[in-house]
């Protein structure tokens, strides 16, 4: 706790803010890639505290938000029609599919369970040998090691009724896709600290060099975020474009080699659909052929037609930082956390929901 309060010290926060104000000489747009950072920014009221010249742009950093609609439909189908025990992390349950969400499927009687660890799903499979258990494996590089481990674990123990529906998204290719988008004008990035804990910083060096953008690996506490912002601004003001590590207390340059090894054992990189954005090359994980028996996509071979997204939802532009949530005509009107039209309004990490909850723009 002391550990946490240190990163919430109001005096230090003031100092960072002062320094940001003194450093910035012209307008800059900085994207925080990770939903956790968006959350920290809005929850702590940081956006309003920053000088006008600094614009924070909320990136595609919520893995729940970018999980393809079609995959949610598949998960719902497996739970409802195939009668599998469908397990996932909590916030995945509320995301609307084209017909319904997993939470709605659960209310209608499907066996949908909220878990906190995929290893728990393997245990459920062992306890229910006559049922099929599917873990909806969503997340960034951060959750990938545990999801991969569950497959290795199930394989070792000879569990035949367990598989994962994988929808992993990778951060560096997403940053690249955002920079490549002509409409988005972003000067610097806060990279997600927890992702780098696993993967290290090495992937960011070529990106930063090729596109001449500062990338600062940043944590989630308010002071982390403030310091990260300051580090990006300092680089920008000095026309530098380097990879820096604000989160050095946790992130090592090479990441966590053990975690990388288990990811590599089970997954291979593939092109991945991002909801609201489209396909990004080499931005996701697929289960390797070796573990095909644990790959729900192959095991059930479900084909479900791609359903159209709600045409009024501009979530793609939101997640690429081209527009802000309140620039969406539906924001807070037809689209609310209780009735989300698009994914960013669902998870508390999503940019639209974060704005809705904390900025008070739509409050009475």
């Amino acid at each position, binding site marked *: 706790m002391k550990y946490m309060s240190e990163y919430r010290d109001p005096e230090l926060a003031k100092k960072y803010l002062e320094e940001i104000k003194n450093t910035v000489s012209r307008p800059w747009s900085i994207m925080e890639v990770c939903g956790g950072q968006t959350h920290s920014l809005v929850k702590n009221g940081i956006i309003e505290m920053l000088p006008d010249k600094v614009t924070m742009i909320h990136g595609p950093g919520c893995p729940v938000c970018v999980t393809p609609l079609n995959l949610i439909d598949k998960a719902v189908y497996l739970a409802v029609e195939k009668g599998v025990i469908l397990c996932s992390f909590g916030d995945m349950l509320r995301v609307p599919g084209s017909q319904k969400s997993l939470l709605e499927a659960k209310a209608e009687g499907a066996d949908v369970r909220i878990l906190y660890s995929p290893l728990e799903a393997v245990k459920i499979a062992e306890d229910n040998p006559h049922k099929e258990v599917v873990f909806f494996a969503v997340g960034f590089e951060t959750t990938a090691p545990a999801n991969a481990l569950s497959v290795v674990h199930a394989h070792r123990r000879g569990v035949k009724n367990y598989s994962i529906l994988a929808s992993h998204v990778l951060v560096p290719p997403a940053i690249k896709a955002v920079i490549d988008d002509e409409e988005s004008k972003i000067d610097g990035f806060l990279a997600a600290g927890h992702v780098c804990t696993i993967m290290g910083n090495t992937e960011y060096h070529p990106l930063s060099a090729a596109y001449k953008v500062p990338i600062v690996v940043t944590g989630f506490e308010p002071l982390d975020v403030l310091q990260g912002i300051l580090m990006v601004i300092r680089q920008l003001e000095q026309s530098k474009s380097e990879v820096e590590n604000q989160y050095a207390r946790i992130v090592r340059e090479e990441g966590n080699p053990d975690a990388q090894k288990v990811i590599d054992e089970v997954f291979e990189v593939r092109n991945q659909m991002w909801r609201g954005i489209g396909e990004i090359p080499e931005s996701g994980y697929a289960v390797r052929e070796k573990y095909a028996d644990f790959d729900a996509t192959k095991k059930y071979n479900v084909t479900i037609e791609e359903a159209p997204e709600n045409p009024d939802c501009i979530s793609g532009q939101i997640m690429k930082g081209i527009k802000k949530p309140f620039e969406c005509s539906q924001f807070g009107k037809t689209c609310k956390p*209780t009735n989300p039209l698009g994914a960013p309004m669902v998870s508390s990490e999503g940019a639209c929901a974060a704005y809705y909850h904390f900025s008070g723009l739509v409050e009475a």
Partner: protein
Amino acid sequence: MSENKKIRMQLQCPMPKLDFDVITLGHGSGGVLTNKLLDSGVFDLLSNDILDERHDGAFLELHGKTAFSTDSFLVSPIFFPGGNIGELAVNGTVNDLAMCGANPKYLSLSFIIEEGLPVKEFWDILVAVKFACQKAGVQIVTGDTKVVEKGKGDKIFVNTSGVGPIHPKAKISAKNIAVGDKIIISGNVASHGMAIMSVREGLEFDSEIQSDTTNLNHTILSLIEQFGENIHLLTDPTRGGVATVLKEIAQSSEIGIDLFQKDFPMDEQVASACELLGLDPLYVANEGLFLAFVSESEADSVLATLHEDENGKNARIIGTVVAEHPKQVIMESAIGGKRVISMLPGEQLPRIC
């Protein structure tokens, strides 16, 4: 955990000798088995003059303005660090009455039991009910038991209703809230919700977090006795947590509320657990906690009085009623930024990372 063990030990009232180990459908039939279950010790355990009449309803004598409240309790798991569903059910209704400024007197107690519940667990729950009643000074005067088929319930559901006369000095109403009122919180936030989480299947993290379930009636009544109409409103932030309750009050009484995050009392372990799961402690459920809107002039005295009380030793002033931004609750974050507090749209689900 030691504290928890102590509580569980206390509950080891000798279990009656029974020729059945689990509750079956027959125990809810109203026939022989029902009587056997109730006569196995239930009446003895909860015995009092009114209940001992064993009539369909209870004969009560109540004088003056009376508060009446009811609540159903469904909690999973039914045993958790710091308590079980039995005391939760007693304390919940006792506290609801106390929040009205009432002196809780009589409670009804109804069970909906899922077939297969071990009698041992039922007994532990009953014993917890007894102790909670003793502590709060209330009596169970009527009750009911039904049994549902396996799979149609979640072990056991408990409903309690209660009545109690309003304290003559109590003037509790949202209408009395005035600009300048201080908002006092009686203790640490989020303990109950996180205690439940810590033993939820699939989560089970090592912690010593205990539910804060307790009866607040004695604490509240002595505050009312002492400060009378200076206590403008009392409320217990159970489901939905502190944030939801305050937002409700702000909206319905059209007042503005300013909160200060740095003043929120919270146990370190609870704070870390919330952080770990990505839960906002402001929205996590509490049980033995209350919020009081108190006139500005008396706020410090109320606080000092509370600090003398076991239920209020961590009490703090967390906010103020303001004329600006009616209907809005605005919290100043620990680092000085401002954020608007809204209601929880649904169940708070742990975040993915």
